[in-house]
């Protein structure tokens, strides 16, 4: 059993607070993805779990052991580093075998394990090379193979596929998910690629400026963002926002239109995903500014009462810049945010 529990973990680098009171539970065998913009503290959190950084406050538990005072090698983890850290003085084979050799595994077993993992990552023909003779993407796969070869209870991966081309990445992603599910490994996977996050995760933790703003299943994060940041970060393009004023009785006026909403008097923000809009007789009046055909869809950037507003429409439609569209939001997909607390309001 290797569930991970992070309790009130904070990290300060001098005066700079990189992490604010992080609480996170990762269940045994769960695939947890940490998603967030560059500099939000993903690597720092991972390094704290690995033991390469000591938390300024809080506790880290793996299984039923408190580990924050244990050395990294006593925590039963394997890690893929963001900068790979593939040993330059060892061949690819010896790199992948490194952890197994440290664990004094039998030689024949090491060879078998290394060859199998290398095959999985499509680097079996590189085993005799040194890292100086590899491309960035190959080096990255060596780093992943080195961690997988350990068959650890917990694997920590810091953007392990960031340097691969789109096709290989898609393939590796599927392989990785399969292997980790089969080996019943608990995984924490850092990425800033939301498609990757959606496709891999059992749960996604969205991080923002050193805090976890939402930890939920991919579809929940997508459909019901807990905070404005999540709504504006997830989705490509992300949600549209418009100011709303209350008429009372849960009636809200948005850009001259009336919608049903929460029964509060405070000013709120109305939010809708671009793909949840469709042309209709009744709806928001939008002036098209930029039209981008994307094959299956048409991405239209428009203007609604001075605010920028995007819609993903059927590509059969003909829209030209300057056209005035009437866009109806799908009523059950409308979300509301409190601009003061930035939290979602039901």
């Amino acid at each position: 059993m290797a569930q991970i529990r992070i309790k009130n973990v904070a990290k300060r680098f001098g005066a700079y607070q990189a992490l604010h009171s992080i609480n996170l539970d990762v269940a045994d065998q769960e695939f947890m993805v940490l998603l967030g913009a560059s500099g939000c503290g993903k690597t720092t959190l991972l390094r704290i779990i690995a033991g390469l950084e000591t938390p300024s406050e809080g506790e880290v538990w793996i299984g039923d052991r408190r580990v924050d005072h244990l050395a990294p090698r006593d925590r039963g983890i394997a890690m893929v580093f963001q900068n790979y850290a593939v040993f330059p003085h060892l061949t690819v084979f010896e790199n992948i075998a490194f952890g197994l050799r440290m664990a004094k595994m039998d030689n024949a077993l090491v060879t078998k394990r290394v060859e199998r993992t290398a095959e999985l990552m499509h680097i079996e023909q590189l085993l005799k090379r040194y890292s100086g003779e590899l491309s960035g993407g190959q080096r990255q796969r060596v780093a992943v193979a080195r961690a997988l070869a350990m068959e650890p209870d917990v694997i920590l991966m810091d953007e392990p596929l960031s340097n691969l081309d789109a096709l290989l990445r898609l393939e590796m992603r599927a392989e990785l998910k399969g292997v980790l599910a089969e080996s019943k490994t608990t995984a924490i996977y850092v990425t800033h690629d939301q498609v990757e996050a959606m496709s891999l995760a059992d749960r996604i933790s969205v991080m923002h400026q050193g805090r976890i703003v939402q930890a939920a299943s991919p579809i929940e994060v997508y459909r019901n963002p807990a905070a404005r940041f999540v709504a504006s970060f997830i989705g490509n393009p992300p949600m549209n926002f418009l100011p709303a004023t209350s008429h009372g009785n849960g009636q809200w006026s948005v850009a001259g239109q009336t919608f049903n909403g929460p029964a509060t008097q405070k000013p709120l923000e109305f939010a809708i995903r671009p793909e949840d809009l469709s042309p209709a007789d009744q709806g928001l009046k939008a002036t098209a500014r930029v039209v981008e055909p994307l094959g299956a869809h048409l991405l239209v950037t428009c203007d609604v009462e001075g605010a920028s507003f995007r819609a993903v429409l059927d590509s059969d439609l003909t829209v030209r810049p300057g056209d005035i569209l009437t866009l109806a939001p799908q009523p059950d997909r409308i979300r509301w945010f409190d601009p003061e607390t930035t939290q979602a309001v039901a």
Partner: protein
Amino acid sequence: MNARTLPYLLILPVTLFLCVFFIYPFVLVAQLAFTQGDGFTLANFREVVGYWKFPISLKNTLLLAAIVVPIQLALSLAMATMVSKMEKGRDLVLYVWTIPLGISDLAAGIIWLAIFEQSGFLNSMMSGMGLIDKPISLLTYEHPWVIFIAIALAEIWRATAIMLVILVAGMGLIPKEYYEAAEVFGASPWKRFLKITLPMLRPSLQTALVLRVILAFEVFAVVIALGGSLFPVLMAETYAYQFDLLNSGAAAAIALIILAISIGFTLIILRLLRVPKGATI
């Protein structure tokens, strides 16, 4: 100025300097060693090698190097590791540890003579503690091993810092991430030293060892100060041929023998600590 010729033009002064003050004298020395009166001969080499003191001085020189260099290697590695782990005061410690570098080898010999001689610190300390009744003379032909130890200590004290500074610089070049990866994958501190530090330090180890081994074969002033003629070494023989016996041919021959030994060991060190192609940081 043409970008292709400029580099050559810039290294020209140094090259000229080396030719005039190094290559040319070297050719002269070689000429001296291989001639006697008229024409080419190996007589000088036969003479110096056949002399009864040659095997002893060769043995002493090699023995001294064989004892001193490994100890210095171990010490400088340990010291460099400690310095590299320090966060504050690192420069200060490094300066203190490298003080002996600023002292000439003769002065170093004299300092250790002051410790070991009959009226020296060691004797005063031992009689002060009641270990001996009266001062004993340590550096005599009756205790050749005391002379050896004194010379070895003086050499270790004097020249470990040369290796230390090279190794500290080399360790500073090893990225921290490799230690972190090794740590996560189960390497103990000792294993990290063996599996990460040592292999990645090979270029610096090469430089430090080559420099130190060559210096060890040239040991002279410290030996003269502490052992005089009781501990013959190759360099002292060269001196004796040149200035006591006024035989420059023989002196040149023995100098060339020292050079050959140095080159031989340099090649061995470079070979042993070779970094495979593609395996550099």
